[in-house]
């Protein structure tokens, strides 16, 4: 049968890095910071994970270092967009660009290779039940993020900060602090996404290996309306479309068609969800300025 457990496994593996990054993106979105630098933060995570695992021999240290490095890297966005009030979109583009340059530069100066670093001695993450532990972590993160955002004090404050920073400030909640926290946590999650990609999905680093996954995460945030569960569904949709695409190649569909499939499916899903949303809320009137 076409839909089988292998397809699902494949989809789940493919979506893990996207899911982790998209959760980070969703937190930022909720805090009112538009984060399109997920791709770059993830790539920094990939490189740090591989290099740390290589030099220490421990993939776990690699994961830890990836989370820390990507969080540190995310400070560019935090300082630029929150403290200096720069344009988040421009900063996000720059964060992505810098990550490609920086990791390629370091790949050459640290490992002396260009393109790909791979070695049989490079320790990847162990598999538990067919998945890397970070896969389970990603799913747990969905649950945690859901509870955090909807029920936890921190989440309530974060949502308030994202919606009306002035109002939060008058109640003694520092929007800056919450925005920083959201960006840093997104950095951590992107770092984990990178570690999963480079030590879980495969065990190697290659230049620009995120290959657009960060952008998909950005789209997943929009499609999932920045809700953890929504983001999960969006990532799942994309993962399934991609995994199904692989299958369809086997049925003779040209590679170019299967390449395009996930994007078309995502766009179609966006059409449907936004059309429905607009049908529901014709009443909201004065929000035209807030729509981006």
């Amino acid at each position, binding site marked *: 049968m076409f839909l089988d457990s292998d397809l699902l496994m494949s989809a789940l593996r493919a979506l893990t890095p996207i899911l982790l990054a998209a959760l980070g993106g969703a937190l930022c979105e909720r805090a009112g910071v538009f984060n399109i630098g997920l791709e770059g933060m993830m790539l920094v995570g990939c490189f740090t994970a591989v290099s740390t695992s290589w030099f220490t021999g421990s993939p776990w240290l690699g994961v830890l270092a990836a989370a820390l490095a990507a969080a540190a890297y995310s400070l560019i966005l935090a300082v630029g967009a929150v403290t*200096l009030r720069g*344009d988040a979109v421009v900063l996000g583009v720059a964060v992505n660009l*810098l990550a490609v340059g920086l990791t390629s530069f370091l790949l*050459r100066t640290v490992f002396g290779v260009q393109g790909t670093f791979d070695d049989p001695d490079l320790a990847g993450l162990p598999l538990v039940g067919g998945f890397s532990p970070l896969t389970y972590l990603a799913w747990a993160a969905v649950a945690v993020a859901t509870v955090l955002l909807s029920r936890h004090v921190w989440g309530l404050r974060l949502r308030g900060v994202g919606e009306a920073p002035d109002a939060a400030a008058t109640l003694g909640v520092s929007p800056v602090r919450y925005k920083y926290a959201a960006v840093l946590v997104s950095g951590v999650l992107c770092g984990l996404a990178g570690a999963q990609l480079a030590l879980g999905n495969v065990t190697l680093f290659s230049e620009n290996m995120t290959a657009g996954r960060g952008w998909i995460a950005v789209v997943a945030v929009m499609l999932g309306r920045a809700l953890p569960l929504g983001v999960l569904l969006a990532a799942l949709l994309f993962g399934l479309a991609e995994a199904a695409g692989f299958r369809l190649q086997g049925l003779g569909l040209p590679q170019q068609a299967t390449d*395009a499939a996930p*994007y*078309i499916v995502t766009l179609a899903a966006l059409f449907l969800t936004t059309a429905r949303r607009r049908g529901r809320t014709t009443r909201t009137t004065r929000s035209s300025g807030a729509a981006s």
Partner: protein
Amino acid sequence: MARIPDLAALSKALRSPVTFSVLSGVVIGALFLIGTGADPLAAYGAVIAGSLGAEGIGSTLSTGTSVLGMALALAVPLRAGLINLGGDGQLVLGGIAAAVTGLYSPLPAPLTVVLALLAGMAAGAAYAALAALCENHFGVPLLVSSLLLSYPAASLASYLVRYPLKEPGSSLPQTRRLPEGVALPAFGSSTVTVGLLLVVLAAAAYWFTDSRTAIGYEIRMTGLNSRFTAYAGVERKGLTLRLMATSGALAGLVGAIGVLSFPYRFLDGALTAPGYTWTGLTAALLAAAAPLGTVLASFFFAVLQVGGLSMERTTEVPRELTQVLQAIVIVFLAARLRFPRRRKSTDREPVAQGEFA
């Protein structure tokens, strides 16, 4: 802009965020170089010599053609606060349309060239307009619709050139070479073609529209406050559609120029691999889409790209350094540069203009 440069203007220019950012980028880049044991002076010297020297200037100008073309394509909607992330798709469709026209047009060669350019522009425009329609009629944000539409376009072009349009016997996914004469004339023996003139003309037209026409004024004001222009009767959806179509036409033009220049055929991936779309976008963002600034930023990035490759050939410094440099400049500038998009009404902070001045 047309003021006589006096001392105040000079000091203002020196204190401008642009100068500051470029200098910061250069300094941080130098620290990187020292950190890896290289000589910053030699490296930067190699960048300058390799891009502006006699042997490099041709490459800089031909790279600059594509970078500037894409930068203009992305600047036009950006001026009104719209971000077109689908440049790659529009570029590729422009290229393939030009290739098909070039291969199958029954007209004499010079007319075919014109027709191919027009076909490229039309294809790019139509596809970009599709993204605008997604925003206007389905409420999918332009940023996302243009990005998502870009991938299928690239896949479509890839399919066409792999199967129906493939050059028989070639082991590459490429079309046949365009017939003799179906090419943009080059300057002397250089790689610089009339394409550069076309793009520079487009830049001039953009400058003129921006500063001297009513529609340019409306676009600028929309970028600063779209509710303001809507209130004054500027129709948002129509403007989005027209701006995106223009943007796509320019991207398509770059694609057509690429196909009508050496090697005179459409080769899968050749148009997008050098990343002109991203470089162009960053140039446009850097300049806040201001016409003159966009031209200067594009030239600056072309210099960095060509110079970086040359630096790698002559010194042992990886070319990624220039990419890092480019990104640092943008980070520094972005942190100080604010776009009026999405601005809250209560914001009264002065807005830094991204003009290079």
